[in-house]
């Protein structure tokens, strides 16, 4: 493998060009005084140079199309090409977001049906597709909880309860919405500490944010007790949909008594989410939160579809984006769900749980410690390498780096924070048994290396374009701009 690909500007030579880079002359439409005098500082390369440059960069990458990618809590499942192909139909691509509803009935129908399918699979009463990412979905959810209490004149509720195992985004969301965060501990078996919950609920409780299955990779068994305690205190229940994959078509958050849920369509419903987006954090709500949904929402009247806006939902928390969310992402999720159907969704949950439990048992048999050995894994599980770190000085990070040499993207490292030296592993339902066996073999080989030649593991990776990076320096001294040597 090439060890370094130059920045494309380094390949640039004055005057070199590709026909495909030449924009059509714009003189006719842009008045002279608005035209730029200097050409933009774009790289000047031939078409072949551009193709090779980006192809080589893609080959240096780990991606779901090239590698097993068990990044826990991220649900890095395969994104079927058919979903992409349908979402790229020219009729969808060419549709302007401000075009009148009458010219986009097909698109609106897809979105209406997507809302309905998400309602059916979560057990919620209404859905808005507009949040552009998981974090925005969370924001919308807590903003609705806040709006609900305010609309009732219940102004003293300013606390959100968050179990310590929560995603870091949960306390961040609560804080963004002007709430105070009350953290409660988890028990050694991974369930929420119910007694601690009882002591923190009260007339100041706005709600609780919960992930079920939790980030510890286990199903919260006392969810109905949690519901009753929070409900009795007048609080609402927020479901973080990060781990929805595990229960798809099996159990519904609406039936567990949740008032609001955000779903990461880019995880559970298989839209691409490498490189940070674009995502989709659609929200679903119980009846009492329906008036506060973010707009627009697709409605149907007399067989016609239209966007419902502030006039239809005067108590809405408002808009989260200029238009209606990430249309292309929503379409991919829609096609994915239509292709799967109800039975397919159940199989997603079954195989994601089966793959996770198979991988966990095989890794335990290979001598690794599960963080919650007495619990069945949901769709993901946690190993703790505390013993390897103590006995051999080889950390979870060393294992993660060495896995790259074996051709596997590393699992999530050092999350959740509760578990020391942890790897959070989520194989997803789309991996074959042979792939899982290969991963076990790699982990076992690295464990063997850690016992016989720890320095080898600590020096990894060896086969990647760059070796171990100084992540402290990278965080402290960001250097993100290219400057020419001449400048």
């Amino acid at each position, binding site marked *: 493998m090439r060890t370094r690909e130059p920045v494309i500007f380094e390949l640039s030579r004055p005057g070199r060009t590709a026909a495909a880079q030449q924009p059509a002359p714009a003189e006719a439409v842009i008045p002279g005084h608005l035209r730029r005098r200097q050409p933009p500082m774009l790289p000047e390369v031939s078409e072949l140079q551009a193709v090779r440059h980006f192809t080589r960069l893609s080959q240096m990458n780990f991606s779901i199309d090239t590698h097993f990618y068990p990044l826990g809590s991220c649900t890095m499942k395969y994104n079927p090409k058919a979903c992409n192909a349908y979402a790229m139909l020219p009729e969808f691509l060419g549709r302007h977001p401000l075009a009148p509803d009458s010219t986009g009935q097909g698109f609106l129908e897809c979105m209406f049906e997507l809302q309905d399918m998400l309602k059916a699979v979560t057990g919620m009463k209404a859905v808005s597709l507009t949040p552009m990412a998981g974090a925005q979905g969370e924001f919308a959810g807590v903003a609705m909880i806040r709006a609900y209490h305010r609309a009732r004149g219940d102004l003293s509720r300013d606390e959100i309860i968050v179990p310590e195992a929560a995603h*870091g985004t949960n306390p961040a969301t609560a804080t963004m919405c002007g709430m105070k965060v009350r953290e409660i501990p988890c028990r050694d078996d991974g369930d929420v500490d119910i007694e601690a919950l009882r002591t923190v609920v009260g007339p100041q409780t706005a709600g609780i944010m919960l992930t079920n299955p939790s980030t510890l990779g286990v199903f919260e068994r006392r969810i109905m007790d949690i519901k009753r305690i929070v409900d009795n205190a007048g609080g609402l229940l927020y479901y973080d949909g990060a781990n929805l994959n595990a229960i798809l078509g099996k159990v519904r958050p609406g039936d567990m008594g949740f008032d609001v849920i955000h779903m990461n369509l880019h995880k559970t419903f298989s839209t691409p989410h490498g490189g940070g987006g674009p995502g989709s954090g659609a929200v679903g709500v119980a009846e009492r939160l329906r008036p506060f949904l973010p707009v627009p929402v697709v409605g149907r009247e007399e067989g016609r579809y239209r966007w419902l806006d502030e006039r239809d939902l005067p108590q809405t928390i408002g808009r989260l984006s200029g238009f209606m969310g990430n249309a292309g992402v929503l379409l991919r999720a829609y096609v994915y769900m239509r292709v799967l159907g109800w039975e397919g969704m159940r199989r997603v949950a079954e195989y994601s749980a089966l793959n996770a439990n198979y991988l966990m048992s095989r890794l335990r048999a290979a001598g690794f410690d599960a963080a919650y050995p007495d619990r069945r894994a949901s769709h993901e599980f946690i190993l703790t390498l505390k013993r390897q770190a103590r006995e051999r000085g080889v950390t979870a990070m060393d294992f993660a780096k060495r896995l790259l040499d074996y051709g596997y993207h590393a699992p999530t*490292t*050092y*999350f959740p*924070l509760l578990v*020391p030296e942890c790897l959070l592993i989520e194989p997803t339902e789309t991996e074959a048994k042979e792939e899982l066996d290969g991963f076990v073999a790699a982990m076992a080989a690295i464990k063997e290396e850690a016992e016989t030649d720890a320095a080898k593991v600590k020096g990894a990776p060896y086969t990647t374009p760059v070796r171990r990076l100084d*992540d*402290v320096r990278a*965080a*402290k001294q960001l250097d993100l701009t290219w400057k020419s040597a001449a400048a």
Partner: protein
Amino acid sequence: MSNLPGDLRYTKSHEWVRALPDGSVEIGITDHAQNALGDLVFVEVPESGRQVAAGDPFAVVESVKAASDVYSPVSGEVLAGNDALATQPELVNQEPYGQGWIARIRPSSAASIESLLDAAQYQEHLVSEA
């Protein structure tokens, strides 16, 4: 094992407290805590004048692994945050009980630090967590 000075008080959430001669206290995170977090890249210290209650998050430490709240072991008024940490967060790693202090607080009750853990009790807590 962790370095635990005998003249300090500790909390289960891994802060230490030093009683200063003028009745105020200096607060930081323990050697164990800095070691668990790894190299710090960012520290947010409280502003002077702020009132804090015991158990309130009043500072943030961020490493390449994790961001964590630091909880005030006592109630009182913040006299100063350690501004040097803005440019040198690594001081917390290098000298957790010295140059890496996070804030100084005037406790609202002089007795409040008596109820905190001593070095032996904190050591026991570390063992129970391990």
